[in-house]
């Protein structure tokens, strides 16, 4: 019988080309009409170690990774030893004929006979493509798109090996049921969270990005750098994270809408700059792609433990907004929104993602750009005879921005407390006035808050609550747990600050049991909800071993306590 959904795990050591074939397979699946969720697990090293590229493929829409392996593609013997026990009933192990295996359902492929040394990955790609029921032309096209222009000779060789392997595999009698045909074939994009953030920023009209490389945030800057000359922006690798955020603030002050991608440790260095953006009222979008801490932690794994850090980062009091996209699509749209809110509120706005979402490629509907506007920069360009003061007082707390050097008006901004003209002051009445002015801007942020997404029954017996990338996992767990006797709902926060209680408190109060599911050990969203509303969630499902939360993890945790 054909499967409507299955999990493929490709394992090997860094340098064996497992990500290369993982991407080609992902692209082929998406082009063939399947939905996918990729999760990548890799070690912090260039060569060796043990890495995996897991593709969950489905006929129906999916939004979470899952446990268990239906097709294990082992590029080295270690992969067999580590993952064989994860094979599901009817799962198949693709191995080199030289590897030891205890699995009774095995396809032993002569890697070196079909391809020479160093081409095992392409041999494996041919085998897995056939087993999944993908057409050779589709996989060949993906291969050609990736390498045909860059290295034509190498591409030709790869193509031959792919064809030989596909053909050889077709002559074997593998005990494996392929994927059912897709429900529809239409154009979808293969995109991960970081790519979607970069595209969202471009659509919003980003003009400046400064960064210091740090996993898992780096590829946001790399994606922007690739398009910089085409799309008219400057991307600069700074000497450190402190320079990165201060450069972006300088650029934004001079009119370029700016983004700074980083991760926990790098963000820690930026916190004084966050405070400067708050004080100088400079729009700035900061992406914090979380990984497990403290300190260097697990550099290449995932966690959701920086919510409290980002919420409190920067000394002193000033408004901020924190978005926490749950899907690749939300990465795109909420990045646009982050630029809007930053421009409107003239201050720091955060996008909080994590390694799992950053690297998780999905099949997504193409974003409709037609009719989209560049985000309003809120800059005043008219001419008037009135004098201009950068921090002029209005009821909203928002003072119209002008740009230095773009008109006769002088613009003065700074980190010291200042009266309306931006120069420093120690007048304590002015101080009080300016604190209140800055804090009034929070009303503008609150007016723009994205409400949490509530799904399922209005009075569920069980309500699963989460934020950020764990969205897919609670949605699927809720669907699986929902039955006639237990109604299960879900609540996902794609913006974790500011919280607007009337948007979600009713849902919490009308549920029988509220369970907060988070990728950290403190239960940081649960603490925040309690602080802001007084509502204490009843139970928590937490994960902090560096891996993403799966639906099975949630179901198991709920069943065991």
């Amino acid at each position, binding site marked *: 019988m054909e499967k409507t959904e299955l999990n493929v795990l490709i394992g090997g050591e860094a340098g064996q080309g497992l990500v290369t074939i993982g991407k080609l397979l992902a692209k082929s699946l998406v*082009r063939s009409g399947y939905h996918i969720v990729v999760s990548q697990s890799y070690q912090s090293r260039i060569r060796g170690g043990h890495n995996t590229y897991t593709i969950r493929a489905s006929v129906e829409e999916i939004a979470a990774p899952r446990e268990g392996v239906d097709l294990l593609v082992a590029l080295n013997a270690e992969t067999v030893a580590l993952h064989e026990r994860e094979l599901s009933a009817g799962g198949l192990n693709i191995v080199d004929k030289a590897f030891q295996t205890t699995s009774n359902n095995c396809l032993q492929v002569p890697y070196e006979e079909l391809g020479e040394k160093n081409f095992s990955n392409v041999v494996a790609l041919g085998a897995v493509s056939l087993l999944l029921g993908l057409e050779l032309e589709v996989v060949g096209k993906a291969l050609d798109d990736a390498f045909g222009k860059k290295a034509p000779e190498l591409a030709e060789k790869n193509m031959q090996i792919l064809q030989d392997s596909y053909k050889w595999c077709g002559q074997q009698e593998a005990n494996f049921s392929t994927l059912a045909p897709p429900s529809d074939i239409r154009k*979808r*994009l*293969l995109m991960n969270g970081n*790519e979607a953030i970069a*595209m969202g920023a*471009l*659509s919003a*009209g980003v*003009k*400046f990005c*400064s960064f210091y490389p740090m996993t898992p945030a780096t590829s946001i800057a790399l994606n922007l750098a690739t*398009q910089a*000359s*085409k*799309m*008219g*922006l*400057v991307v*600069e690798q*700074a*000497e*450190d994270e*402190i*320079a990165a955020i*201060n*450069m*972006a*603030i*300088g*650029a*934004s*002050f*001079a*009119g*370029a809408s700016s983004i700074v991608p980083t991760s926990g440790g790098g963000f820690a260095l930026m916190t004084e*700059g966050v405070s*400067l953006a708050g004080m*100088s009222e400079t729009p700035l979008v900061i992406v914090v792609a979380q990984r497990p801490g403290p300190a260097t932690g697990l550099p290449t794994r995932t966690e959701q433990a920086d919510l409290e850090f980002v919420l409190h980062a920067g000394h002193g009091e000033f408004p901020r907004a924190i978005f926490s996209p749950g899907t690749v699509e939300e990465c795109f749209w909420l990045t646009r929104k982050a630029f809007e809110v930053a421009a409107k509120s003239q201050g720091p706005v955060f996008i909080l993602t994590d390694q799992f979402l950053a690297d998780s490629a999905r099949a997504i509907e*193409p974003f409709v*750009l*037609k009719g*989209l506007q*560049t985000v309003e*920069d809120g*800059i005043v360009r008219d001419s008037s005879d009135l004098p201009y003061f950068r921090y002029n007082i209005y009821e909203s707390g928002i003072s119209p921005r002008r*740009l*230095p*050097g*773009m008109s006769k*008006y*002088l*613009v*003065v*901004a*700074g*980190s*010291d407390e200042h009266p309306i003209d*931006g120069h*420093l002051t120690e007048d304590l009445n002015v101080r009080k006035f300016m604190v209140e002015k800055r804090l009034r801007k929070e009303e503008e942020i609150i007016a723009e808050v994205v409400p949490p997404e509530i799904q399922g029954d209005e009075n569920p017996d069980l309500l699963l609550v989460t934020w950020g990338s764990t969205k897919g996992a609670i949605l699927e767990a809720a669907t699986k747990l929902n039955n006639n006797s237990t109604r299960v709902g879900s609540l996902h926060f794609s913006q974790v600050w500011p919280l607007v209680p009337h948007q979600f408190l009713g849902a919490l109060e009308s549920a029988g049991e509220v369970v907060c599911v988070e990728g950290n050990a403190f239960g940081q969203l649960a603490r925040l909800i309690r602080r802001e509303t007084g509502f204490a969630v009843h139970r928590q499902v937490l994960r902090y071993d560096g891996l993403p939360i799966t639906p099975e993890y949630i179901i198991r945790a709920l069943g065991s306590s």
Partner: protein
Amino acid sequence: MVSIEDYGEFETAWCPGCGNHSILQALKRGLVDSGLGPDQILLVSGIGQAAKTVHYLNANAFNGLHGRALPAASGAKLANPNLKVIVESGDGCNYGEGGNHFLAAIRRNIDLTMIVHNNQVYGLTKGQASPTTQEGFVTKAQPEGVASVPFNPIAVAVAMQASFVARGFSGMVDHLAGLIKHALSHQGFSLIDVLQPCVSFNKVNTFGWYKERCYTLPEEYDPTDWQAAMQTAMEWGDRIPLGIIYRNQRPVFESRLAVLEQGALVGRETDLKKLEKIMDKFS
């Protein structure tokens, strides 16, 4: 025509007799002599007594964080290359807290002018050692005398082949105004290290101490000779050379970015058709 009056006169928080007063005068004159008006320039500073300079004249200004004037200035310049960007801060801010940015700015060679008020001591925090404080100098924080060797900004900048390196003295305002004018017309990163007395906290390197030692480099001195410049950069003690110590014609950072050929980044329409094509590559 720009006049010195355009830059205004303001009450300052500086001590009477502080070298900052003269540096501010020299800055205004250098700007006027360059034909630059307050709306054409952006002054960027960090924190410290010197960093307050930007508040004491009419101009666009961004008074950022301690040590971080250079990154903020670099970002502003890249966002709008038409701005004349000047960094104005002290030795502690630029060479201590901001040391890494100083090295990076020299390497990048963005067209910025950096004027460092170097009084060899921390003024605003009341008298601790700065990176340029001389060995043995006693302070409340270093009661047994400073043990570290002073940082030589000129030697570091010349060694790294910074594109314009000069030294001035607050006691020679005409000379300093001339250096500032030269630096402003130079394409690329220009450093002017300005020696100044701190009347409150530096009783060793006083006005008289500098006056006695400072001399201007002779006419025949060739600032394009790097080896001679290295030697001049190491000269300190009984005689301290003033003037343009080194310069070269390295390409400026901005010239390598095609995007900046059209000037300021702000206000450019986002080409969604191009973005659509970029996104299509993900299919």
